[in-house]
């Protein structure tokens, strides 16, 4: 008889730990490597549980695109490389995937986007960093300069992510959290949180300057950069309202920058 021991790892992103359970010690090791400081010891504080069922590598769904839909209180999440279900009432779910870090990474992004939608928060395509105890977001599509700006960060700035920022409302406004979701920097962010001071829309230009952005343009720009996957009318409405609440409370400006370290002189 072969005994299998279930390994449990709490992956704590944005202050919302998900207890991940797997029967594979190798996969658990892989997760520890992938998520580093975002892995915590399992505790009774974990409110969410995700069971991983590993299968041989093969195409699970014909459709390569991610699909997220709600059926009888369960989110059904599918992509070419995984299938997952999430019971919203119990805060439990499972994912069926091969032993790779990319599939579960996709599941975690989607689950957090669902959790945040009900909290007034969101995931956004943005680099972020903490400086002098305050967080700054740098939003833009691929190629806008998120990774470049992250690479140029001075020693007194802690990079929270160079790709996907995590924003939650708090009693004083909003907080940004570090994430393990990395872009070209290929390095997980610092596992920190800090009050959000500003969001900058990145535009590369011949010099470094900050320009005002009118509120409607700010809302449009933030909406364009939001990560949201679910085909669900209620949650789409909630995310829309969250973005407008956000731009009403957080300064949104355009950061025109030339890729050298002096741009950080403006970020204080």
């Amino acid at each position: 008889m072969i005994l299998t021991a279930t390994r449990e790892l709490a992956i704590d992103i944005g202050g919302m730990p998900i207890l991940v359970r797997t029967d594979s010690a190798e996969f658990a090791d892989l997760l520890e490597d992938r998520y580093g400081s975002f892995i915590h010891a399992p505790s009774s504080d974990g409110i969410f549980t995700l069971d991983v069922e590993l299968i041989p590598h093969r195409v699970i769904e014909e459709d390569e695109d991610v699909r997220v839909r709600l059926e009888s209180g369960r989110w059904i999440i599918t992509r070419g490389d995984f299938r997952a279900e999430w019971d919203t009432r119990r805060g439990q779910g499972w994912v069926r995937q091969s032993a790779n870090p990319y599939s579960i990474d996709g599941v975690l992004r989607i689950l957090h986007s669902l959790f945040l939608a009900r909290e007034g928060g969101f995931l956004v395509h943005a680099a972020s960093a903490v400086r002098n105890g305050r967080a700054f977001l740098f939003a833009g599509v691929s190629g806008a300069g998120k990774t470049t700006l992250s690479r140029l960060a001075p020693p007194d700035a802690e990079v929270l992510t160079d790709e996907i920022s995590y924003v939650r409302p708090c009693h004083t406004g909003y907080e940004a959290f570090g994430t393990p979701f990395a872009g070209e920097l290929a390095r997980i962010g610092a596992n920190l949180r800090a009050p959000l001071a500003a969001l900058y829309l990145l535009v590369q230009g011949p010099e470094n300057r900050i320009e005002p952005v009118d509120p409607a343009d700010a809302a449009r720009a933030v909406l364009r950069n939001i990560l949201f996957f679910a085909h669900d009318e209620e949650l789409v409405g909630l995310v829309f309202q969250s973005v407008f609440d956000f731009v009403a409370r957080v300064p949104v400006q355009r950061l025109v920058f030339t890729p050298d370290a002096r741009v950080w002189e403006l970020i204080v």
Partner: protein
Amino acid sequence: MTTYIARSKSVAARMLGGEMMIMSPRDTTLFNLNDVGSVIWQSADGQTPLHAIVERLCTEFDVAPEVARQDAETFVQELVEHGIMHVSDRPITAEPLRQEAT
């Protein structure tokens, strides 16, 4: 035939900086409404006939009735296609039942 139009209750809409923005909850298309569109949107209470809304457009924006009617119908049709607005030949008092896919 008299036409009535009503905003979908599930739609997300906000006025910001004098600009009305609405998002289709069905496909997340974002619409920015100009002044004419904002008047139609805010008048779409399910009780005001579309011809009365068109008359208001003619008065407020000094536009010919036929042009205003065509613009309004095109605008309404687009919002209907995105699930943002409902159209009926009688006053609309409640959200119409959604047609489920079969």
